[in-house]
């Protein structure tokens, strides 16, 4: 994975955590610089993710608030299926707890197993399975409702 791919992956992960474009950009930049200062380069995606995660946890502890979504400047894939419901998906994902969104993202997009997510986040595997389950349940219910409304 080259630097550009690593940065994109880091940005998506940061976005999954905070659901805010500007904050995600800031997080990935800060993590990137931090790893360069320490190691001279960004060696692995896992390390980049861990650094991003540590940064956002520091911010949450410092501010005692979880920053949620900004609905500006969004860019979306061109798939017809997603385009049809992108606002719904955005709204539902924004409504998930940060931990749910993070576990869902790592599982579905990055392909991590529940055990790998548990190792990465320091949570028990059972908790990760519950988080993925709850996230999917909320997403499924939300999408079903939006389809019902549309029809």
């Amino acid at each position, binding site marked *: 994975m080259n630097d550009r791919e690593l*940065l994109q992956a880091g940005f998506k992960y940061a976005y999954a955590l905070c659901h805010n474009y500007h904050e995600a950009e800031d997080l990935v930049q800060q993590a990137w610089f931090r790893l360069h200062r320490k190691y001279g380069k960004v060696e692995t995606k896992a390390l980049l993710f861990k650094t991003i995660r540590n940064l956002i946890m520091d911010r949450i502890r410092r501010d005692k608030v979880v920053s949620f979504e900004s609905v500006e400047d969004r*860019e979306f894939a061109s798939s017809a299926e997603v385009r049809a419901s992108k606002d719904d998906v955005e709204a539902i994902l924004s409504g998930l707890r940060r931990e749910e969104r993070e576990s869902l993202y790592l599982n579905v997009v990055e392909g991590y*197993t*529940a055990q790998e997510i548990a190792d990465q986040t320091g949570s028990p595997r059972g908790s990760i399975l*519950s988080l993925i389950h709850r996230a999917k349940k909320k997403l499924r219910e939300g999408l079903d409702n939006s389809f019902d409304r549309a029809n």
Partner: protein
Amino acid sequence: MDDDTLDRVVWEYYEGIVLPEDAMARILEAAPARSVVVPFHRRSAFRWSIGAAAALALMVTAAGVAGFRPAGAESTRLAHQVLDVYDHHLDPDVYSSDLQSIEWGLNHTDFSIVPSDFSHLKGYAVVGARKCQYSGKKAVQVILVGKDSGREGCLYVLPYDKAFDRIREPDVYVGNDHISMWRDGDRMFALYEPGK
């Protein structure tokens, strides 16, 4: 909406989340200026050698523990199979808290995974399930999470086989872990509960 469709919706959504080109260029350009010489103890070769030694020690220990499993009765065999499946920590094929929905989602299990008596599952929440095998036959591993403890357990469901008639001890302890087994019509259930 099934799990695969849901996954695709999520995947496609995040595919559309991209770091703008100007931001990427800015980060990539600015980063090298911040680089410093890496101290020896942080160099990858050094860290990898420590990691490899730790992994080797862990594998030797794990092999010793795994090897220490007594053979014998059918209950022990089933209990160890349950433990083996659990130890792999494989993810569910279907996520749902409803066993009936899971049954539909798994397709072709050939038997129902819904127990006629839920008392054994008291205190647990179902989060999903996956297909697996027992003695070459289809089985289902239902993943459970303790409602209070958050600890992970699993329920193993498989078609009843004559061999299970030989089960004399429906409760088996392996270390602190507890496996209870019971017959439910033409199915066999085995519940794994991790020790404290």
